[in-house]
């Protein structure tokens, strides 16, 4: 909820400033690093047995050609309680999959990746999530009173601190829109999150129209992951704006136990997720 305060301020500054254009900027290139996208999301009502972990390497910022997919690594997840090991199988396309994973709520797990003789380790706990209670569209809501927005409602549990991530993606869009939420200002209440698109010539964004389908995900995440994804989202959305936080090097939870100075990017996340789709009327 705090994010809204900042977002609003950033929007103000964007409204006030006038001119934007794309420029050539020379940036430095650091040596490639391993990227671990280990997002073990367990959709409510499913078994959660099929999981995929993606491995790649970082590339120069403006590069579009390098094949960054990582093959030949070994990937393994362990249940910290019963020590069951789940070995993910290299699909030779940068993905590593498993079909007999057993998710347990509030259970901690350990990820181990061995790549180029270096061992990467991460620990995380599988967080539960509350149900989406309602989805509706409106015009009045959101920032703009003239375009359609989709509102997602859910009830925040009262007796704990909760952290959420939401993903909205209109089918056909290249990227999802990510939101981070905490319940500091709203503990125990019904929370509403809206998704709105406005016409924007610069980004070619178009407002939602009847027939558009939006995929929605609500994930319960750990505080540690919240701290990570909050920064990541702010950097993706606003990095460089004068009222956004100065961007910093993001550090995930995948540490390199062989060479601590070479940690991996990305994150080992376990989250329960509620998924829904909404067709704009």
């Amino acid at each position, binding site marked *: *909820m*705090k994010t809204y*305060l900042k977002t*609003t*301020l950033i*929007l103000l*500054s964007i*409204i*006030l*400033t*006038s001119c*934007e*254009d*794309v*420029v050539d*900027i020379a940036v430095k*290139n*650091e040596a*490639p*690093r391993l*990227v671990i*996208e280990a997002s073990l999301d367990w959709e409510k009502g499913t078994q959660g047995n099929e999981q995929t972990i*993606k491995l790649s390497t970082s*590339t*120069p910022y403006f590069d579009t050609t390098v094949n960054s997919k990582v093959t030949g690594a070994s990937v393994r997840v362990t249940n910290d309680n019963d020590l069951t090991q789940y070995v993910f199988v290299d699909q030779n396309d940068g993905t590593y999959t498993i079909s007999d994973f057993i998710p347990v709520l509030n259970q901690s797990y350990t990820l181990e990746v061995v790549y180029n003789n270096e061992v990467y380790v991460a620990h995380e706990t599988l967080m539960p999530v509350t149900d989406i209670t309602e989805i509706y569209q409106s015009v009045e809501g*959101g*920032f*703009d*009173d003239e375009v359609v927005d989709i509102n997602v409602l859910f009830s925040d549990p009262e007796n704990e601190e909760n952290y959420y991530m939401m*993903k909205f993606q209109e089918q056909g*869009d*290249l*990227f999802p829109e*990510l939101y981070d939420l905490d319940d500091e*200002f*709203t503990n125990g*209440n*019904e929370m*509403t999150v*809206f998704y709105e698109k406005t016409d924007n010539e610069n*980004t070619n964004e178009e407002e939602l129209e009847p027939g558009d389908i939006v995929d929605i995900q609500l994930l319960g995440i750990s505080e540690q992951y919240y*701290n990570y994804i*909050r*920064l*990541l989202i702010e950097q*993706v959305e606003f*990095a*460089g704006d*004068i*009222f956004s936080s*100065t*961007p*910093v*090097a*993001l*550090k995930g939870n995948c*540490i390199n136990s062989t060479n601590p100075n070479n*940690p991996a*990017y*990305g994150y080992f996340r376990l989250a329960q997720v509620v998924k829904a789709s909404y067709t704009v009327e």
Partner: protein
Amino acid sequence: MKQLLFLLILSTSWLSAQDNFTISGTIKDVDNGETVIGASVYFKDTTIGAVTNEYGFYSVTAPNADYTLVISYLGYADLVQEIVLDRDQKLDIEIHEVSTQLDEVVVTAEEGERMSLKKPQMSASKLKVSTIKQIPVVLGEVDLIKSIQLLPGVTNNGEASSGFNVRGGASDQNLVLLDEAIIYNTSHLLGFFSVFNADAIKDVKLYKGGIPARFGGRVSSVLDVRQKDGNSKNFDLTGGIGAISSRLAMEGPMFHDKGSFLVAGRGSYAHLFLKLADVKNSVYFYDLNLKTNYQVNENNKLFLSGYFGRDVFDFSGKFNSNYGNLSGNLRWNHIFNDKLFSNLSLIYSKYDYQMILDFVELDWVSDIQNYNVKYDLSYYVNDRLSIDFGISDINYDFNPGEVKPISESSAVNYLKLDQKRAYEEGAYVAVEHKVSDKLTASYGLRYSTFVRSGGQSLNVYENDQPVRYNETLGIYERGTVLGETQYDKKDAIKTYATYEPRLALSYQIDENSSVKASYNRVAQYLHLISNTASVSPLDVWAPSGKFIKPQLANQYAVGYYRNLGGDAISLEAEAYYKTVDNRVDYIDGSDLIGQNNIETEILNGESRAYGLELLVRKSEGDFTGWLAYTLSKSEQRTLGGSAGGPGINNGNWYNSAYDRTHDVSFTGSYRLNDKWSFGTNLVFQTGRPVTYPDGQYEYEGQSIASFSDRNANRLPSYHRLDISATYQPNRKPNSRWKGEWVFGIYNVYNRKNAASISFGQNSDTGINEATRTAVFGIVPSVTYNFKF
């Protein structure tokens, strides 16, 4: 401390020889009765003289003799009067301006702008409002804060960022005073314009170093802004109609000519920016300056001044944001005798910020306010010695944030962050001592204390670590809270005390040149903690206390000053070295908004800055102006300290956000004839340090930038050229109405100076690109000013 003051008074009165007499009084402008600040009052062909203080008062003591008294103030005709100093006497003098043009547009500069070679005060710049009004500005909106950025050693973080930076310092390290009241936020519209309405301002003085002992509380600079008292001779109306705002000021005599008043208002137009034209948004600001004074009798004068300013943003009724400063000051000037001048001030200041988010039904308010009692005395002992001394007590109330639901159905719970309270006290003595005809010394001491009072609870952290280094993940995290300690209202959470010595020397080499040196130590007990490039209105002032130590600056400066070609051209060269202890910086991933425990988001560090400043100034003739060049470095270092770990940027020194290697400004004005005059600025600055990506990777279906070390890169260089022309039509000699047109072009060659560069994916192609945001391209403007 008080005993010390008493002793000083005793000893100095003993110092004054018996056959000396004193002449004292007030210097005013003959046309409007405004007291004149900084006029020179001296006896011709001697080294005896003084400068009028902030209330126009002077006192000169000299041996019994006949003298030629000269009053000199730039833009004004020298006033010469024969004096027989055979007894103490009082002499109030009115001087008159050379120019008869509108808005005191004077073609000569003032004594204060010329260098006073003998005075030990260095690193200070005085700007007259008439000078400020001649400087071309964006959209014709006269801007004090933008004007001082043309001086050497003063920069800011871009056109749309608030505040200013002095000698590599942050904007919260500037003490900004409007009639002695602290102004916490100097910007309108998040930094586009400043809060000072030039029509209400009389005098502006910026101290970049050698900060006098009577000031304390901020480590970088003091910007001392004084409002006009109001015309005590005639009723006067001045105003202007510009592209951004309109202004109107009324002033005139009051209380049967025993006083005067000034009311000045300024309001901007809603729908200011073209981009907003088609939507139901409004963005505007207004401010109001008030001043009145009453001369009770010969030795007593009362002043009441006030300021109220507000910015309002309303976006389709969806969110509303407003903020502003409020200040008031009641002052009592009392002249004990011809050698002892005093002023007592009761001051109130408040800054508050509100944001209403209709779409989440949330109302956010934060504010800071203070009450300040100050008593300042000046004792003019004899022709070689004068002493300033006084005390100050500031009582602060901090409300870091309050969240309210705005309806029954709101998802938001009421939340109030801990209120904080503190007292800041200071006592000082400063002596200006003419050691010989060539050497003058100013030595002083300020003793300041800061009490963070209770009435709140503070977290107790495991191992006393509000922040701790997570060795495994290599990041700084919030410490573990073990419990809370409740502090009673009458208990102090923490007390700090600092001795702040101030020293300055000037040595006159010859008629036209001098060298000066200064040292000052200043403590700063308040911190504005920000992790954004521009200080945002959401950033909250935090007092020192159990977890945050006071900032402590030591600054050393030397300078060489020379008048070239008479008084018309002067050269100043200064070098400085400054260190600041306990300069906190935010940790990577800090979350400052609505943060009740700010200590968990910061690490204690230090900063240092050094530089060379050159200023060549021409202050008389049809052409006036200056060229300023600054070569400087500003860095900071933040070690892990008690939190463990290497600190920020692995504990190495890194550029502060205010580091500018080169900073060049040229500003000039040329008076062609009675009708036309022209102005220009040319500015060049090394780009601001920023953090760029040094790689990318795929995550969550997007390209994520990986960023390098903090402030390791720079924005492209900033430069621009502005011009303006002022036209004053023929006037009927007897008409009171005087008008002028000001035509301006800001950023003539339409350089798109980057306010920021952001990195992201093109949403169509998915290819990474760098996007530049420029604030002002070429901006023409027309303003009409009038006086009646």
